[in-house]
């Protein structure tokens, strides 16, 4: 049974240093099942490092990361993906010289098992598996509205579609947790709106979403829970409303002098009113 507040991913006292820099410092976070959780913070706060720790690209110096109650630390990135965590990258990492369809097919690799010999002999089991894989990839591409681009090489896609393709590829791994690293980065207003709808749709289909985002319109618009990070530490967390009022957060983002042009509610305040 899915009770609200059931924890899917739990980070506790996770730390990671690079040389003398404590990128992530005793960081705690719970991602609740069925929610959209956002991780925000100024540039260099350590957000992407947290993602890389979860997905096994880095190994934490201390702490524990539990997914569905099982420890993730020490697992290789592909094992993390197989466990049910899919991700996208801040700087897009598509398979540029392959078609969009092939890109999305990659997600199904870890859910299938045909080997070399059965592929050469095209055994009935292999054929059946191929058909299933194609079907699943088709479903994911249609979900993000990219089926018409299936035979296009990834490198020929316009930027907004590249972001979508990465999400489709991640969805094809059949994840329980989808991690998005700045999905709205570089998108225009319309594309951002579509993306928000897409993310909400993904959540409603039963996949928990955890994202890093700078676009506050996105974060405040779709998040169920927001966690704020600065200098590797968690400085605040709560519902979007709570976080916006937290003085710690305002200080981290705006500085004490209040002289930044950054605004949380972009919709309410015109941009660039005061630039000192």
């Amino acid at each position, binding site marked *: 049974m899915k009770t609200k507040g059931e924890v899917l991913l739990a980070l506790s006292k996770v730390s990671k240093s690079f040389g003398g820099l404590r990128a992530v410092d005793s960081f705690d976070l719970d991602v609740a099942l069925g929610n959209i959780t956002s991780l925000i913070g100024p540039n260099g706060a350590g957000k992407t490092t947290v993602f890389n720790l979860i997905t096994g690209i880095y190994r934490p110096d201390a702490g524990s990361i539990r997914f569905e109650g099982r420890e993730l630390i020490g697992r290789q990135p*592909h094992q993390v993906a197989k466990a049910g965590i899919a991700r996208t*990258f801040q700087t897009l990492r598509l398979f*540029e010289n392959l*078609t969009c369809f092939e890109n999305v097919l990659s*997600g199904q*690799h870890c859910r299938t098992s045909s*080997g*070399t010999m059965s592929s050469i002999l095209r055994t009935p089991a292999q054929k059946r598996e191929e058909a299933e894989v194609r079907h699943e990839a088709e479903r994911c591409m249609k979900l993000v509205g990219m089926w018409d681009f299936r035979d296009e090489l990834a490198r020929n896609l316009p930027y907004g579609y590249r972001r979508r393709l990465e999400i489709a590829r991640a969805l094809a791994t059949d994840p329980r947790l989808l991690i998005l690293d700045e999905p709205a980065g570089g998108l225009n207003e319309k594309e951002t709106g579509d993306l928000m709808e897409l993310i909400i749709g993904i959540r409603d289909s039963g996949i928990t979403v955890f994202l890093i985002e700078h676009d506050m319109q996105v974060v405040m618009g779709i998040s169920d829970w927001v966690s704020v990070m600065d200098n590797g530490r968690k400085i605040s967390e709560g519902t979007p409303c709570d976080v916006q009022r937290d003085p710690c957060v305002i200080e981290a983002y705006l500085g004490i002098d209040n002289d930044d042009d950054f605004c949380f509610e972009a919709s309410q305040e015109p941009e660039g009113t005061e630039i000192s």
Partner: protein
Amino acid sequence: MAERIGRADFTGRLMAPLPVVKSLLSKWRIPILIGLGIVFPLVAGNYWIDVAVFWGIYVLLGLSLNIIVGEVGLFNMGHSAFFAIGAYTTAILSERFGVSLWLLLPLSGFAAGVAGYILAKPIIHLRGDYLLIVTIGLNEIIRITLLNNPWGLTGGPNGIIMLDQFRMFGYAIQRPMDFYYLVWAFVAITVFALVRLQRSRIGRCWNYVREDEIAAAAMGIDTRSAKLLAFTLGAAIAGATGTVFAAKLVVISPESFTFMESVILFTIVILGGMGSIPGVILGSAAMMVLPELLRNFSKYRMLFFGLAMVLMMIFRPQGLWPSRRWTTILREGEGE
């Protein structure tokens, strides 16, 4: 004006049968090629049949290296080491124990595959040029080991003379024409298997690793074992080719497996187009057949060669016949 229209009409009528010819060609091109291949030795002289035999051997080697370099993007410039292991396994087991060559074919492939797996395992995480340097080293180590005649097995610089031949129903395969059919039959089988692999889960995962290793891992692909599989399979095919090579050459010696040989194989893959099977066939033709055609200029062979490489890198870096992506439209048969 009228004259111009008339002319256009004329050319139009002249070109009209062309699409028919084109569609016939595209539909029948594989049977036509196979037919030409079967007829070729019946009309060509022994010299050119021999050239075609070596072309076929290099196609096999090129295809095996293409798995490693083209499909997965691992820069292996020591591929002739695995070819050597296959050839020597064949020669030693055949001469000492009289094992049949038909049995030695898979056995040599297996030996080279095991060697490939063991040698690649500790170095497979290396990237690009680092891997390239290490594989050059492996090539030299294997060659020098063969030269040093360990336990009197390899015959040192003189090599081994292997007298046995492939035998079929009491008939020994030793004429150039026999070898031609044998080698190109192996090419056909290998191409068939590799095309199927390319279009399967395994072939795709190799391409994912080549395109972006980190993204591939994030999609749940065990990149390390994917690379090891490719390396092992590539080494195994090269090893099996070694058996054919030993049967053809009779004398197996270390000088057939130098670093230069690896460079030629590497060039075949790059020249043809990474990951492209027709590219490998064309690339080996360029490396094996063209030098024969230009034998009169053999003094300047290396000069032509270097010049061609430079021009290729400038004007056609994707190779002679770049690999084409498989598309859903092709699959559904809606036309090309």
